[in-house]
């Protein structure tokens, strides 16, 4: 019998999580790991591995092809460019403490697309192959240049058979024209709501009247774009929001999922939010929040989830959850999405734009005028997967996890730190540890939330297999 290599990791309670390269996992104990590492597996061990797809007898049998398919399905496929982030202006009418973008004051001049720049962007979009496009308007505050947004949207609607638009906006200045723009069924709103008014004011508006205006604007937009608004809070660990109030705020918004976003270690946040470096504090905060919503869901029969944990759970349970570009593997850069900055420079991600804008490293990959510089892109993509990392090759979470070379460069100025020393790895080890503990929990309170998050009427036993061999001889 041939056993596909199993990676293993002890959980906090001493149980051991094991997974093969295709991401099929089970829970066992130290004695199994000893037997496995010392080449003395029992008949029960071998039967379990064979029955659960971790082993095969010959390459001609279905078990082999099944594993090959599952491994292949675990690899993210990028493909044709169909998601473009545009930055029509760097001007903004707020100055949030954790702003990661290279913003300019609202009244500044020279920070918007010129007519020539608009023409170049439209020319770039015109040349794309394919019949679908998703445009994300970033900034600055993109609604300050509604005319440019209209020009892009009109063009895309005519050029592509299917087009969608996301406006990442602070909703601070909304009038009839903006409401009309956002009322279109192909247009989505992404905004930040940091909690109750005082939380929102502390980091974003720094003026209670403006915070009040924001919530009024949010209400107005909800009336014209119901079901097309996503909001998320950015969490400052030094002044975290009251969790119950945060949850109530999002429940009032009608969202059943909250994406807790840590302060991004970019731009202003480097100076003003040193806690953004502390992954341990973040992990503790995040787990506390998850425990709270699990308890709350059980008490209320509710279904509130934390978006990123749910994504991790889904990635553990099945291949194909590769839509979130920050967590996929390979996470090829400049492939199916990219950023066109206000000055026409191309970047693989918005964070790469920030790293470049603050002068840390030039991560640009071309210009809208001349297209992608494939040599520069290839250099970045050499670090865009985790299969060969000397530590990831031993990590059972590797098939579900990803990499973030831009974050590594941003935080450490290098790509070759041992993974366990990086914020990305520290965060995801904790997330997958938590996800594993939840998946193998028999606590009805946990199971209730898992059913809601995974949209399952019941949690099948086989979803989280457990293997022990009490008859195995000990050393």
């Amino acid at each position, binding site marked *: 019998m*041939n056993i596909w290599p*199993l*990676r293993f990791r002890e959980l906090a309670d001493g149980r051991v999580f094991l997974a093969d390269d295709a991401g099929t996992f089970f829970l066992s104990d130290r004695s199994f790991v*000893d037997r496995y*590492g*010392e080449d003395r597996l029992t008949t029960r061990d071998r039967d379990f591995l064979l029955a659960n797809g971790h082993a095969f007898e010959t*390459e001609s049998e279905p078990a082999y092809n099944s594993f090959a398919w599952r491994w292949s399905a675990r690899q993210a496929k990028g493909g044709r460019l169909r998601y473009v982030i545009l930055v029509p202006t760097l001007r903004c009418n707020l100055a949030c403490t954790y702003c990661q973008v290279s913003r300019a004051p609202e009244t500044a001049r020279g920070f918007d697309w010129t007519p020539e720049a608009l023409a170049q962007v439209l020319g770039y979009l015109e040349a794309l192959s394919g019949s679908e496009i998703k445009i994300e308007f970033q900034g600055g505050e993109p609604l300050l240049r509604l005319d440019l947004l209209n020009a892009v949207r009109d063009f895309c609607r005519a050029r592509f058979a299917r087009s969608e638009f996301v406006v990442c906006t602070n909703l601070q200045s909304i009038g009839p024209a903006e409401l009309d723009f956002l009322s279109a069924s192909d247009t989505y709103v992404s905004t930040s709501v940091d909690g109750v008014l005082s939380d929102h004011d502390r980091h974003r508006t720094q003026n209670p009247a403006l915070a009040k205006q924001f919530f009024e604007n949010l209400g107005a937009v909800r009336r014209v774009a119901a079901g097309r608004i996503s909001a998320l809070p950015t969490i400052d660990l030094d002044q975290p929001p009251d969790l119950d109030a945060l949850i109530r705020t999002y429940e009032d918004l009608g969202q059943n999922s909250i994406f807790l976003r840590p302060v991004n270690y970019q731009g202003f946040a480097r100076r003003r939010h040193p806690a953004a470096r502390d992954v341990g504090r973040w992990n503790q905060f995040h787990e506390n929040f998850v425990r709270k919503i699990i308890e709350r869901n059980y008490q209320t029969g509710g279904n509130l989830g934390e978006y990123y944990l749910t994504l991790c759970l889904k990635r553990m349970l099945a291949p194909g959850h590769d839509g979130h570009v920050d967590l996929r593997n390979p996470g090829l850069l400049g492939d199916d999405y990219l950023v066109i900055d206000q000055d026409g420079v191309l970047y693989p991600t918005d964070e790469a734009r920030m790293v470049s804008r603050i002068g840390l490293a030039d991560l640009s990959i071309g210009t809208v005028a001349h297209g992608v510089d494939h040599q520069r892109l290839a250099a970045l993509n050499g670090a865009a997967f985790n299969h060969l990392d*000397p*530590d990831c090759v031993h990590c059972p979470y590797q098939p579900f996890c990803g990499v973030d070379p831009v974050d590594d460069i941003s935080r450490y100025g290098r790509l070759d730190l*041992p993974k366990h020393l990086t914020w990305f790895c520290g965060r995801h080890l904790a997330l997958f540890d938590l996800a594993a503990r939840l998946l193998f929990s028999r606590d009805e309170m946990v199971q209730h939330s898992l059913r809601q998050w995974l949209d399952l009427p019941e949690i099948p036993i086989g979803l989280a297999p457990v293997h022990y061999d009490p008859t195995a001889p000990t050393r």
Partner: protein
Amino acid sequence: MIVQISEHLRASAPVALARLAYHYPELSFALVDEVIEVLGENFDEAVIRREVSYALYRQHLFVQSLPLRAALLATLSHP
């Protein structure tokens, strides 16, 4: 602390020790004849003993399974 290692894990020891060295920079690991010697202060011996075993297993299993992984990639590259 001394950790005995099985004969079949000896070949994995140099790489395993290199990995342990950067995961536990406060400790010193050395392969001496048939054992691994761990030097340091105030460490949990049970934890480190297990980590040494796991590092040896991981390297052993990694090398042992390379042909399987190569065959899988060959299958997928040239089905």
